[in-house]
């Protein structure tokens, strides 16, 4: 948290003007969506399926170390593609405009233990609407970590570097638990809530199917390569989890990203909402391949401004958005992956301890200006 509100220099007229300029960027992309974009997502989906098929095929012979390495690498990439560029973005409705029932937010299911339906609620609805609002956006530390000075410290937070490491390794399970709001729902009374039980059951079903596929069926099909295949799938899941966790941490945790108070969003205008997304997100700079492997979530700022624009358009949108940041003298938080990952982890470690007494705190009055 910065002591000084980085948007204090903007008048409310300027903020609304900024909103209109962002709307214009959005409208332009929507008007230009077409065949090229549709061909892109179809190509990516086909490539992912072929890569997964070939990798699983190679793993049938994973008794031989080169086959193990090749198959594991391929499967890791396939799983990352499935979750990031394909799953995350389709579930955002980015491709609903194609009216293809097979590539649609209402029908897509992903290689993940959290069922699409539940993830869409916690991610699309809660996180994207209440981005970085303390107490409303559970993505701020996923309910197990403290990632901002304004969050209350508790001795539990001493262990947060460890929680974060474990969360990275088993990220998909972390997300499933998070989508279920497990912590909140495990109390005796809430456990019995039929709605919660139905959702927990759905997660159980999904976990069973995923585990059966990765750790029983495919290893069995590999015959003598049973154990190497099992190890390969475990590794691929681990790689995917650590990668997605790292990318996602870079979206809102690096230094320079702002958080907001609950009351600051009451009566928020469109311009103010946009401004909050701008100040609450951070990008990752890098090559085209990097952007692809992050599912274009390296363009997190652009994604948060326009969560339903097709991911292949974020790169061109980023140029215009960045120009607006400059025009309105706002800080565009970005950096290469290692730097951003380090920054996020540094914060996790730093905030495991209570705030230093000497730190200058912003008076509340000033904080409210963020969304005034």
């Amino acid at each position, binding site marked *: 948290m910065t002591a000084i509100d980085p948007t204090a220099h903007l008048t409310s007229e300027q903020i609304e003007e900024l909103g209109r300029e962002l709307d214009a960027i959005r409208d332009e992309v929507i008007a230009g969506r077409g065949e090229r974009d549709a061909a892109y997502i179809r190509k990516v989906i086909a490539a992912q399926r072929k890569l997964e098929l070939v990798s699983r095929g190679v793993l049938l012979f994973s008794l031989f170390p080169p086959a193990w390495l090749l198959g594991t690498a391929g499967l890791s990439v396939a799983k990352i593609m499935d979750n990031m560029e394909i799953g995350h973005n389709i579930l955002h409705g980015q491709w609903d405009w*194609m009216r293809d029932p097979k590539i649609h937010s209402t029908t897509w299911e992903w290689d993940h233990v959290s069922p699409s339906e539940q993830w869409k609620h916690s991610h699309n609805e809660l996180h994207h609407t209440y981005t970085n609002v303390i107490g409303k956006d559970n993505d701020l530390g996923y309910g197990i970590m403290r990632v901002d000075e304004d969050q209350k410290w508790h001795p539990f937070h001493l262990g947060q570097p460890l929680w974060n490491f474990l969360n990275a390794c088993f990220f998909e399970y972390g997300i499933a638990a998070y989508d279920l709001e497990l912590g909140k729902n495990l109390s005796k009374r809430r456990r019995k809530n039929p709605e919660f039980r139905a959702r927990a059951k759905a997660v159980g079903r999904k976990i069973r199917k995923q585990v059966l596929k990765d750790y029983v069926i495919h290893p069995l099909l590999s015959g003598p390569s049973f154990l190497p295949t099992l190890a390969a799938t475990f590794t691929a899941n681990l790689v995917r989890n650590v990668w997605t966790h790292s990318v996602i941490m870079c979206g809102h945790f690096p230094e320079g990203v702002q958080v907001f108070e609950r009351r600051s969003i009451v009566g928020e205008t469109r311009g103010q909402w946009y401004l909050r997304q701008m100040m609450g997100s951070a990008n990752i700079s890098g090559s085209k391949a990097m952007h692809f492997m992050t599912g274009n979530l390296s363009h997190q700022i652009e994604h948060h401004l326009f969560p339903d624009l097709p991911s292949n358009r974020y790169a061109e949108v980023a140029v215009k958005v960045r120009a607006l940041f400059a025009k309105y003298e706002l800080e565009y938080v970005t950096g290469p992956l290692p730097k951003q990952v380090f920054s996020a982890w540094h914060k996790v470690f730093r905030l495991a301890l209570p705030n230093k007494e000497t730190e200058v705190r912003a008076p509340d009055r000033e904080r409210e200006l963020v969304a005034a």
Partner: protein
Amino acid sequence: MTSAALRSRAWKLLEMVTTPLLPSDYLDLVSPLREGADLRGRIEAVHPETGDAATVVIRPGRGWRGHTAGQYVRIGVDVDGVRLWRAYSLTSPTHRRDGRFTITVKAIPDGKVSNHLVRRAKPGTLIQLDQPTGDFVLSQAKPAKVFYLTAGSGITPVMGMLRDTELDDVVMVHCAPRPQDVIFRDELHDLVADGKLRLIEVHTDTDGVLDIARLDELVPDWAERETWACGPAGLLDAAEEHWTGHGVLERLHTERFRPGIVVAGDGGEVTFSVSGKTVAADGATPLLDIGEEAGVLMPSGCRMGICFGCVTPLKAGAVRDLRTGGITEAEPGVLIQTCVSAAAGPCDIER
């Protein structure tokens, strides 16, 4: 265990292998037209017929059940990346040896799909198909005397019949603006030359729109003939009135192509067809709010168009996107975000 049960077990096992996808998601990569796949077709050729009409040759997937002459098929074509569904009459005979079928499409002004098919569709393109359907077909017992009354692209189902079934006594009145606008003109004249058809062309640019009363003069025995009529609503309305007036309506079979065209306005009657409620809506209030106020159980989420938690089928009518002003018209499979859409005329929401 029966072989069917075995096969279903094997399929279940395969589903466990491919979860969360289905085996068909992978099979579609290599064999989209196979038996058991969702019905699709591949465009194999596009032959121009007139300046604005073309015949599209389609190889259907294995699941294609074939058609009866006069029927139509709904096809789903991706135009500018968006899947749009339209119905077209089949123009090929039913006994075509090569397993392909044809539709003949006339490009209508501003018609997205028709212009795409006539001018831009490329051989090799996959399209989605439904099974052929429609009861605009010849009766089981061949009628002794037949009259085909057509206009414009209304000739297409009738051409399917002409090519399929040879009848003894056939008269056809066909209306088109100019001679060069008559689709299948050469083939029709060949039939005339072979004595298989008596053809009367009405060129509306010079002759004016066909006055149905002229039928007495053009086809004196029209009332005795089993008649199949297809064309614009005006022609069909006039025909129905004429046949009714003479008490021979049972001999008239009609096919209407285009249901009422949606005129997008501002607000309208909104029907929530599942809950059976109809309320008036203005052109500025989100349909989500309209539904909730009427006590309809509406799914909702962010209420600002970003989470896609409120998408709902639009069964009829048109809605306006409150952010962009864009109009979305009802088509099968069209879903709208109720939180950022308002009524643009009467519409039917499946809730």
